[in-house]
């Protein structure tokens, strides 16, 4: 019994502290939105009050007044959106993003000893610009995953995109490169096929992070293709396959009869997806079936250049772990 009581006593302050943090944040959001609404109401009613005192106002004059009023309402909407975005960045990390960050963090903890021994590899970071003009720094880590079959080892390739200013993780690409059999071509002879699958997760939507991150991914996979070509010789074909999960969700929601803003959001997201991964999209994928698209990543090896991945520096490894911890802690 004592033990139970002690445990409860120890737990109480912790849960209180968590509540205080949540309450303060919600309070800040609430008071800011309330202040905005009050300012808007005061500006509109003040104007209307003055207008009511002016005699013989024509329809055109009223129309002009309404246009000014609409400017105020639009400003209110824009500011609320901006605030929402800000809260999204700071607090509302999407659940799937935090979960993936947590899974990756666990994987890196498990691989730490292996990294110290030199079995986790990396290239130099790649800097990319998003369509919004913001820079992201993309670090990569790779290791050979042992699935118990010596002949079917997969290479795990992980890309972590961070905002170089505050160091916060903004995107993750978790991928596998695995042998996918042999094919034969009259010109090229036997070709070792390598299939690339995986998923991309971004912390914010509509910020252009995914295309920038996948641009870095493409550069990294090209380097790996160069490495295979130089190191192993023979022909290798890297085929990157992406699945349009958003379209699946969209079709499902349509079947369920969903309409309104939620459906519109999925449709907007679908347009963004198609612009990047769809046919004639930015990254040059080709359609395989309703939901899958593929792209063959061609090597572009230059003479005298090395494409070998370096053993990861442990400072870099720990820095990536720390940045992932922030995503996971943010979820709590």
């Amino acid at each position, binding site marked *: 019994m004592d033990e139970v009581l002690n445990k409860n006593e120890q737990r109480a302050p912790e849960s209180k502290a968590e509540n205080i943090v949540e309450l303060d944040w919600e309070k800040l959001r609430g008071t800011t939105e309330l202040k905005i609404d009050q300012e808007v109401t005061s*500006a509109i009613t003040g*104007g209307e009050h003055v*207008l009511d005192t*002016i005699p013989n106002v024509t329809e055109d004059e009223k129309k002009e007044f309404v246009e*000014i009023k609409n400017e*105020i309402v639009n400003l209110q909407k824009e500011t609320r959106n901006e605030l929402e975005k800000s809260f999204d960045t700071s607090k509302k990390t999407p659940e799937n993003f935090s979960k993936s960050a947590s899974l990756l963090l666990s994987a890196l903890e498990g691989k730490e000893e292996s990294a110290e021994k030199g079995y986790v590899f990396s290239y130099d970071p790649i800097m990319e610009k998003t369509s919004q003009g913001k820079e992201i720094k993309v670090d990569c880590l790779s290791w050979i995953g042992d699935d118990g079959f010596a002949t079917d080892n997969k290479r795990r390739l992980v890309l972590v995109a961070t905002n170089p200013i505050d160091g916060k993780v903004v995107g993750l690409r978790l991928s596998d490169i695995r042998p996918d059999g042999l094919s034969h071509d009259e010109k090229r002879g036997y070709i070792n096929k390598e299939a690339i699958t995986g998923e991309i997760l971004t912390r914010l939507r509509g910020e252009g992070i995914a295309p920038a991150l996948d641009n870095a991914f493409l550069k990294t996979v090209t380097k790996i293709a160069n490495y295979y070509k130089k190191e192993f010789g023979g022909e290798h074909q890297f085929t990157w396959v992406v699945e349009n999960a958003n379209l699946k969700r969209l079709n499902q929601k349509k079947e369920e009869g969903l309409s309104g803003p939620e459906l519109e959001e999925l449709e907007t997201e679908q347009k963004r997806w198609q612009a990047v991964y769809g046919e004639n999209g930015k990254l040059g994928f080709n359609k395989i079936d309703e939901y899958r698209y593929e792209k063959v990543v061609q090597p572009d090896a230059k003479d005298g250049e090395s494409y070998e991945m370096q053993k990861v520096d442990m400072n870099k490894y720990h820095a990536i772990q720390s940045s992932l911890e922030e995503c996971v802690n943010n979820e709590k």
Partner: protein
Amino acid sequence: MDIDSENLEQIKVSQSDSDEIKIKKIYDSFIVKLNLIKNKQFVFLNNLFIAKQQADLKELRKKIQ
């Protein structure tokens, strides 16, 4: 609040700002923009008021004459 459109650049949200600063800057920027629209609204209503007064005066003069 003693801020006007010239201050908009200064209160532009930067990625390096803390969460609290970001919120404050968004709010300050809102106030600056709202003041500009309020000013426009005031000018419009003021001009309308003067125009109507002048029209009334004109009408009154006509009646007196």
